[in-house]
């Protein structure tokens, strides 16, 4: 397989075929669904986009382990973690959702996908997708991950390949 990401004249170009773009767009939808905050659906869109809706509301660690991995506790102490979450979780959700929108915008342009100013957002998005799939698959350090019959596992491995390719471009290898 050739490298999906390459640097061309200052921009990073992603060579992704139609199926690859469709899979990534599907993951965009999935992350949006996981991170959309039902408790702030009454708030105006601008406030939600800026992560200002729901700030200051009491929040527990998310019960879904996948969401809890995307929005982890910042303190080991439960009380401090809750206090920090109360003030910052809405902002973190909004930030991650803004990454998705950058990726979606890039994927919806005609190929090849040219990433001009959203490389960090792409990286963070790919990392979040891997966290979602890896947490669902219950990946451990000792897992020997090879492509097989499980489509989720194959997608997880494909995302590692994409992420590695992008990191290689950015580190300059």
């Amino acid at each position: 397989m050739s490298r999906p990401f390459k640097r061309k004249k200052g921009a990073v170009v992603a060579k992704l075929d139609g199926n690859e773009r469709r899979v990534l767009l599907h993951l965009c939808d999935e992350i949006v669904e996981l991170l959309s905050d039902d408790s702030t659906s009454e708030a105006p869109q601008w406030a939600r986009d800026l992560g200002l809706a729901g700030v200051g509301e009491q929040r527990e660690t998310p019960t879904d382990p996948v969401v809890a991995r995307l929005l982890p506790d910042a303190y080991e102490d439960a009380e401090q973690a809750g206090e920090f979450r109360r003030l910052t979780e809405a902002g973190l959700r909004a930030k991650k959702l803004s990454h998705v929108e950058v990726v979606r915008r890039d994927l919806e342009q005609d190929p090849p996908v040219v990433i001009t100013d959203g490389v960090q957002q792409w990286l963070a998005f790919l990392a979040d997708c891997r966290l979602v799939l890896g947490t669902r698959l219950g990946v451990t350090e000792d897992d020997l991950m090879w492509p097989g019959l499980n489509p989720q596992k194959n997608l997880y491995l494909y995302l590692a390949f994409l992420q590695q390719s992008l990191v290689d471009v950015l580190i300059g290898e």
Partner: protein
Amino acid sequence: MSVAPAELESPATEFAPATPYICLVWNDPINLMSYVTYVFMQYFGYSREKSEALMWDVHNKGRAVVNAGSREEMERDATAMHEYGLWATVQKDD
């Protein structure tokens, strides 16, 4: 004359903490080693050598102290790590 708005609460309200805080990054089986290294280089501006050493600490010891400073600064760092999908926590440097 309008009344000044009440100040928003911030996560860190202590003034000039006597005890510095630290930001820890925890090992996880999902994030790629090269990605973790890159995030340390990009966000903290650490050299590749230092970033790789920290990444190996995370991998081998389960966690590593990636920065020290005020509580506010460490909370900012932990949030940035969470934005990148790394798991970080803040604690007092006892």
